[in-house]
């Protein structure tokens, strides 16, 4: 049995775990760290429910070999709140009723954050492009697009 030690930053906090060879980052986050916000949707790279930020870049945690993130900084939805307050994107998603079953929401929010962190005033087409790797089966995407545009424009409830 050879478990590999692994240290990285998880939502601003240093964590250290031991992983089996071949373990993906989604399993490491959920089962070893206990952060249940990234979800398993396909394991194939097709749905985006497991999306996280690695050093600020959007990645699919299910396709990331856990041991490749040593020393890097991982952000998940669990770290999105700003202290006790919701992030503007979270407020905008709520305002726009942009979640139904809620299962795609963590990935959508991370994809949206990756966009707004780089491009604070995206066009509608840029928003569409930013969430194009994330499947939502409930909403028809329209409220999600509107929520991200509203967050970018500062049009969110207090």
């Amino acid at each position, binding site marked *: *049995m*050879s478990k*590999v030690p692994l240290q990285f930053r998880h939502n601003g906090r240093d964590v250290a775990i031991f992983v*089996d*060879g*071949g*373990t*993906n980052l989604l399993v490491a986050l959920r089962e070893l760290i206990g952060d249940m916000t990234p979800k398993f949707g396909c*394991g*194939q*790279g097709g749905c*985006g429910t497991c*999306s996280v930020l690695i050093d600020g*870049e*959007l*990645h*699919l945690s*299910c*396709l*990331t*070999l856990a*041991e*490749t993130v040593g020393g890097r900084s991982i952000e998940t939805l669990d770290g999105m709140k700003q202290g006790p307050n919701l992030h503007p994107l979270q407020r905008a998603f709520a305002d726009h009723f942009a979640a139904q079953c809620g299962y795609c929401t963590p990935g959508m929010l991370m*994809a949206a954050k*990756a*966009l707004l962190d780089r491009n604070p005033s995206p066009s509608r087409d840029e928003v*569409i*492009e*930013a*969430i*194009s*790797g*994330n499947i939502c089966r409930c909403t028809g995407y329209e409220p999600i697009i509107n929520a991200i545009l509203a967050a970018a424009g500062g049009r969110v409830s207090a």
Partner: protein
Amino acid sequence: MPVTVKTFASASEAAGALSSDRTARYLGGGTLVMRALNEGDVSISTVVRAQDQALTRIDASGPRITLGAGVTFARVLAERDLGFLHAPARSIGGPAVRNMGTVGGNLFAPTPYGDFTVALLALDATVAVQGGFGARDIPIEEFLQARERQAGTLVLSVSCTRPASSEAFCYRKIARIKPKGGSVITLAAHLPISGGRIAGARIALGSMAPTQIRARAAERALEGRSLDAATIAAAASAAAEGTSPFDNALGSAWYRREIVGVHLRRLLSGQE
């Protein structure tokens, strides 16, 4: 048994590990190998990685550009000097996949994937590979024809000559889903113009055969001619010639044959 991960400092060591172990697969961006592991592909027991800086190098300063095999599509998109490759890079996956997927991995992606490789084929790229017995350069066409036998080799980089002008190269992926969808067909055309005539036409197609192929009949229809409506029409009607499309979940062979000429015509004449 858990998978064994072997990480090497140099590409040549990684290539050695890869060629000596039939259960080993090289981990690039993860979009192919990690998916296979997640889905229970037990033929993979060893994952080989290399942390060789050369694999992630981009050389885009001169007329001939070189992309390390580990260069991601997001990095291609971030490189202003690689503007001619932005359309193919943007057509891959969503943003997360573009942050992960690599130029080298795309060479191995089965249909309906492998769109970037269509562009590289039209650009007559060269693939640098490292086998158990050293490095060598292979024309991309040859590489693709023998792709199944390349499993034990490691791709180091791809290189190609920059198109003479931005008009000389065009690319389009036909997908059912927007903005991100699997390829029904993918088209790339490199049509250098010399003295008002096309010289050295290369048209590459994805999803028109088991691997990316050239549309040689369409190339012949273009070669030596000016790019006018009649020439484009002739190339469009020859587009399916020599191809061997297949049925899959995204479309049938019949449909692919029917539309490849339409889309080639639209691509070459700049229509939506």
